[in-house]
């Protein structure tokens, strides 16, 4: 309820006095309120950005060539671009996931949906006389259907989101394997592969897809009332219903967005390797996506979200993954390091932890003083 109460409190206190206030004063009050909100908003970016910068500095120490960028074969080439490129699937999933989590739900099926959309596209590409646009359309349609299934289970049948989407998480991979008949289906289609390995304006296509999806979703949610509806449903679904918000439709919509994002991510990963691997495509990526949303500072209880921060979270995860690969540490430490770094990022974000840390240091210094005095 945080964001809403912030908006409403001044409005309530305004109304009785507004008659006495001049237009100018009113505007000044509005401005102050806006700025307070904005500065509060920017504070949320501080710690995730800090974490990303620290990771990049670690890379600078490990190997300065990490930052070298060169232009070859009509595209920018370098590790930084790789990080952006490779984080695309998780970033897309994170965009969808933040919307779902903002409604107080969760979508575990996104990894499986990736596998299905990849498998469907790969098989369509192998069918003669299917236009590329049909393949893309059907691929996204898979995401919409998956979202409809998840969304109706959650909102209209009232099943717990974690259980409802677990169904599709398990069944979805089976469906993808069925479509692929248990094999890895490979295809030769330069035009479809373009969305995974192509370049536009010197940058890999997946980056543009993420940017596009981010802009579209951001405009859709923040320039219309939809974003507010989603947050309000996430805070309190029944209160929102009494306010006249169709909470079921809002939830359904959130799952559809997540489904479409997952389908896009699945198409990118299939195009990337020019094959659909039903067993491994998107495996465990739902967890990375949830992690990205959490690193972005969203609450898993719902009611607050920032798409940009979630994408930043995905970027942190991928930077970390690339750092581990470049660092040359044995592979068996991968998961341990990942867990430790993520823990650190989350602790940095926790206000309580920061306060305790401060307290720890201040008592230490006072102890020292005490010791010196003696």
């Amino acid at each position, binding site marked *: 309820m945080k964001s809403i109460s912030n908006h409403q409190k001044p409005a309530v206190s305004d109304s009785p006095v507004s008659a006495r206030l001049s237009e100018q004063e009113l505007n000044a009050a509005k401005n102050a309120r806006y700025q307070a909100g904005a500065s509060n908003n920017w504070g949320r970016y501080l710690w995730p950005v800090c974490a990303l910068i620290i990771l990049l500095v670690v890379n600078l120490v490990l190997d300065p060539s990490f930052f070298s960028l060169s232009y070859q074969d009509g595209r920018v080439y370098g590790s930084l671009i*790789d990080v952006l490129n490779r984080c695309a699937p998780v970033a897309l999933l994170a965009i969808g996931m933040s919307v779902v989590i903002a409604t107080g739900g969760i979508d575990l099926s996104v990894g499986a949906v990736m596998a299905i959309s990849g498998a469907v596209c790969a098989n369509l590409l192998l069918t003669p006389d299917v236009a590329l646009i049909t393949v893309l359309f059907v691929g996204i349609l898979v995401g919409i259907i998956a979202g409809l299934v998840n969304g109706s289970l959650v909102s209209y049948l009232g099943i717990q989101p974690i259980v409802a989407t677990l169904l599709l998480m398990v069944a979805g991979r089976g469906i993808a394997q069925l479509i692929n008949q248990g094999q890895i289906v490979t295809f030769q289609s330069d035009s479809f592969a373009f969305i995974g390995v192509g370049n536009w304006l010197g940058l890999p296509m997946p980056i543009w897809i993420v940017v596009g999806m981010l802009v579209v979703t951001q405009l859709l949610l923040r320039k219309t009332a939809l974003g507010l509806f989603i947050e309000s449903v996430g805070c309190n679904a029944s209160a929102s219903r009494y306010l006249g918000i169709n909470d079921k439709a809002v939830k359904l919509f959130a799952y559809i967005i997540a489904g479409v994002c997952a389908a896009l991510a699945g198409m990118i990963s299939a195009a990337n*390797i020019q094959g659909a691997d039903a067993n*491994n495509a998107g495996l465990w990526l739902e967890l990375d996506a949830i992690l990205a949303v959490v690193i972005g500072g969203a609450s898993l209880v719902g009611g607050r979200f920032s798409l940009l921060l979630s994408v930043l979270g995905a970027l942190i995860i991928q930077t970390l993954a690339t750092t581990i*690969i470049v660092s040359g540490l044995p*592979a068996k430490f991968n998961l341990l390091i990942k867990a430790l770094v993520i823990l650190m990022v989350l602790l940095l974000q926790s206000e309580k932890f920061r306060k305790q840390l401060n307290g720890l240091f201040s008592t230490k210094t006072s102890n020292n003083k005490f010791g010196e005095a003696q």
Partner: protein
Amino acid sequence: MNIRSMIILILVSIAPNAFSTTIGFSQVGSESGWRTSFSESVKAEAAKRGINLKFSDAQQKQENQIKAVRSFIAQGVDGIVIAPVVETGWKPVLKEAKRARIPVVIVDRNVNVKNKKLFLTRIASDFSEEGRKIARWLVKATNEKCAIAELQGTVGATAAIDRAKGFNEVIANYPDVKIVRSQTGEFTRTKGKEVMESFLKAEQGGKSLCAVWAHNDEMALGAIQAIKEAGLKPAKDILVVSVDGVPDYFKAMADGEANATVELSPHLGAPAFDAIEAYLKGERNVPKLISTTGDLFTQETAAKEYEKRRTN
């Protein structure tokens, strides 16, 4: 009429030749291309030897396998071959076979029973020998001087551990052959590509690398794409070697984008039949583990091998 009696009826209707050996084969299923060629190979081998093979597909379920083995025992076959889906839970049915004096050969995956006398022998691929074979080829092809990037399999997988062990054993004898980068690609194409991309960046755009050694073909195929996207020529600027022998990899070799692979042999039928036939002739000292390794394939024969495999 239930399925079991139907299977028996079908099996009875294909009346076995009283003079030839009858062997029952319980296969896991057909979950991968490799499994399919494994089944085909066993059937072909049986046909060649004039063995009357009773084939049962368990569709990844152990209870189906146990049912199949019991029906083999009931029919009084001369030998049973099992490709187990899981390691546990085989003791009762193996005991039944033992009581019926039918030799059982385990192929591919292991079974976990304390009493090793319950089965005749186990036939399995030797992962470390696969690693040794490919390492020997690489050492020879690079004149004993090579900086290798290793794409490991899933951390903790037997195939990954043993392949690395065999490979490292061989290259330890050559001071100028070294693994300079090593990371897991989790046996998948996507991760293989991602890891290789980073390796190339970390090694001056790949100039200091001479070869990439992947623990399976899928990761190697991903690495090939990464090498191509970095503007280098796979199999020329950076050699590509791996293990498995999947059709896609043969195609890559035929196209000149990969160098060599050691096939994860699907031809486990021949040694299994050898063991059973030896036992039936009175030989009692069959070794408890028979290892097989596939052959090494290079670009020369790749095109022909690809044609042979794609039809499967």
